[in-house]
């Protein structure tokens, strides 16, 4: 090599160009999405006589998507490893019922302390269920579809049994703040806004943390490597079983957090709040551009997937579209999203 320095400089310059290009592509995509959003929002706003673009309604959309977005974070990790978690909906219910019963039985009620201990109990249940989901997958190579389907049935049955078929009402009001409270109410009142809903804060913090975990840590890199080529990952010395176990534990933990927030919202732990949530979370992940075949995806994409679905639901409610029609539209949007994603990939590869 005549000029190793020159080659190196060229490589670095090329990497900079590639990064710039990929950033430009990303911004182009974002810009396209924003433009589409603006058009849709304008149209919707006109048809709903201005009901959509109000601060209160937009805050509502964010509050409504919180639970699905939090579930979908864990689901994103699972799906990137080419797995699936069908149990998260039931785990919302099981953790909710367990947490409500625990909080009622706990002798002390000192506000935030009770919330923290209760969440810890919920996380134990959720993460424990995730562990049970993962063990047959990593030890016996069973398909996660089956193990999490079994957990879905067991967790729901257990939740109903523990709750005797009815919601468990909370005795303490220590949870009201995180369920329905707002931050900075005084400040935002001046702009006619209700403040920042505390549940939304949970979502934003969790999305930020897990986006960093996925893109910046060793664990995140291993999640992608396992989804991309499990055998190569194993031969590179990665503890595949541990990483796969962790993604189901994270998913179960996410269900526990969503369970806490829903329990706080309704002031009770209910054994049927989570029906269908697992499919909603998978839809958010897929619409957000994560490949069900594994190896590709992002937490931020999932957040926008959940947001898109939430906006659609909200808009259709505002337009008084009946719920059956809403399901049809939602299904069509999911199908469209994956078709567009696949075509985009083919176009890029060609």
């Amino acid at each position: 090599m005549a000029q190793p320095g020159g080659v190196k400089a060229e490589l670095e310059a090329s990497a900079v160009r590639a990064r710039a290009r990929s950033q430009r592509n990303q911004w182009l995509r974002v810009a396209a999405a924003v433009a589409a959003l603006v058009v849709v929002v304008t149209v919707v706003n006109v048809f709903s006589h201005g009901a959509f673009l109000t601060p209160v309604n937009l805050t509502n959309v964010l509050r409504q998507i919180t639970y699905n977005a939090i579930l979908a974070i864990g689901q994103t990790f699972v799906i990137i490893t080419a797995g699936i978690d069908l149990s998260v909906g039931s785990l919302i219910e099981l953790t909710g019922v367990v947490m409500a019963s625990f909080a009622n039985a706990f002798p002390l009620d000192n506000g935030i302390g009770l919330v923290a201990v209760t969440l810890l109990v919920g996380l134990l249940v959720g993460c424990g269920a995730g562990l049970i989901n993962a063990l047959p997958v990593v030890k016996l190579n069973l398909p996660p579809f089956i193990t999490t389907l079994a957990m879905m049935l067991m967790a729901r049955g257990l939740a109903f049994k523990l709750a005797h078929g009815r919601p468990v009402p909370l005795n303490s009001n220590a949870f009201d703040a995180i369920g329905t409270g707002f931050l900075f109410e005084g400040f935002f009142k001046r702009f006619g806004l209700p403040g920042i809903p505390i549940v939304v804060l949970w979502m934003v913090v969790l999305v930020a943390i897990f986006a960093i975990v996925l893109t910046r840590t060793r664990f995140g890199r291993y999640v992608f490597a396992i989804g991309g080529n499990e055998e190569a990952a194993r031969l590179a010395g990665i503890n595949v079983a541990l990483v796969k176990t962790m993604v189901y534990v994270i998913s179960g933990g996410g269900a526990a957090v969503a369970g806490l927030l829903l329990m706080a919202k309704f002031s009770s732990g209910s054994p049927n709040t989570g029906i269908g949530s697992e499919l909603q979370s998978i839809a958010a992940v897929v619409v957000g551009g994560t490949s069900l075949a594994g190896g590709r995806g992002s937490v931020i994409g999932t957040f926008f997937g959940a947001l898109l679905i939430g906006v659609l639901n909200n808009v259709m409610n505002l337009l008084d579209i009946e719920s059956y029609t809403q399901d049809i539209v939602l299904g069509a949007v999911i199908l469209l999203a994956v078709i567009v994603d696949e075509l985009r990939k083919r176009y890029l590869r060609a």
Partner: protein
Amino acid sequence: MKGIVKTFPGVRALDGVSFDVRRGEVHALVGENGAGKSTLMKTLAGAYRADAGTIVIDGVEAHIDGPRAAEALGIGMIYQEFNLVPELSVLDNIVLGQEPQRGLLLDHAAAVREATTVLTELGIALPLDRAARRLSVAQQQLVEIAKALVRHARLIVMDEPTAALTDREIDALFSLIEKLKAQGVAFVYISHRLEELPRIADRITVIRDGRTVETRVAADMPQADLIRLMVGRPLDAHFPALPPVAPDAPVLLNVAHLESPGVHDVSLMVRAGEIVGLAGLVGAGRTEIVRAIAGADVPQSGEVDLAGTRVVIRSPHSAIAAGIAFITEDRKAQGLVLGMSVRENTTLAHLDQFSRWFVVDRAREESITNKEITELHIRTPNAEQTVRNLSGGNQQKVVLGKWLIGDARVYLFDEPTRGIDVGAKAEIYTLMLELLRGGAAILMVSSELPEVLGMSHRILVVRDGRIAAEFSRDEATPASVIAAATGAAA
């Protein structure tokens, strides 16, 4: 078949092969690993399409554009790995794809009639209702033959038919072949077992480097000639000179009595600065030996010492921690995450070196990757390129780069230059020498005889999962290695 040419990206697998098969004849096809036998047969069976050349059947030029066309022309293929559906019954397998029907429904009785006719004609008994997976290997082979005959095959191609059979089963197979020959069925018979050819073959054709070397009547082809024709080329000159191993060089890898699936009581050692080549036929157990040492398969018993220290190999992770690097034979399935970038693949096995706490330091990843790209001459626009888009040789260099950034002292190379062009090969050899100069020990599996002979200080020949012979670089000749690998009396 005349002048068949088939090229794959970067490789000319077949370069003008011609041969003919007569009615009622067994024509044996022999050649080294990678000589082109399988490619040729797959072309005949319609699995591949030839780039040039003609295939003439019964005086008529045939266009074989798929397995169905081959079948219609009366060509039956019996691959070494059988093509049976394990859960279906013997009967269902025999008539698979051309099940007799009555209206829209399957005609079970007609299927039974068809199968029994063929089987009684051959004088073989098979349990028609048993699931194929519950049959012995020999019985599965009979199902494959019956399958071909139900399709009225007049030419049956058999790839290594005796590889997994006992002596008695081989006798039975040969008498069956004789019977079918008498009925006018022709056979193309591919085998590595040179000693059985005089018993079964009428004529023998030797293939080398994708070309026909010679066709002779089997009786006029003594084994010595056969081996000479198979290997008959001078060692390629492009191998670099190997530096001698110091007589007092420490033993870096010592393996004793290793047992693992496909590996039986293997003991070997490699010194610092030495390359030991593992030669042998495909399926002899060479890959299994290095996989066991690398923890890719967990050894059942045996001892592994690294530089005099006993190590317990329980997983790839423990082997890597002990200082073993394993460059796998199939880079796409085992070596690389194709959808990831050059940078992400390069650091995958040593990510702990690039992270503080758990957070990966991308700047450091990028600088080490750029260093590897420069030093290994990896042709990629930059470190962010997805490895799927690189050529085979450059992908292989990424795999090497991935292991070079660790501090391994023992390198296990499994087919280090498979499917890559000559230029990249030479670069990889040079790199292996650099590793030796750095004090590493190398154990290399290669199916290319010149590579084993040209790039090893010592050669161990593996046969049936055991070390069958050992040669120093000076003793080893193509003929002696082939003889030891095939079990022929050299």
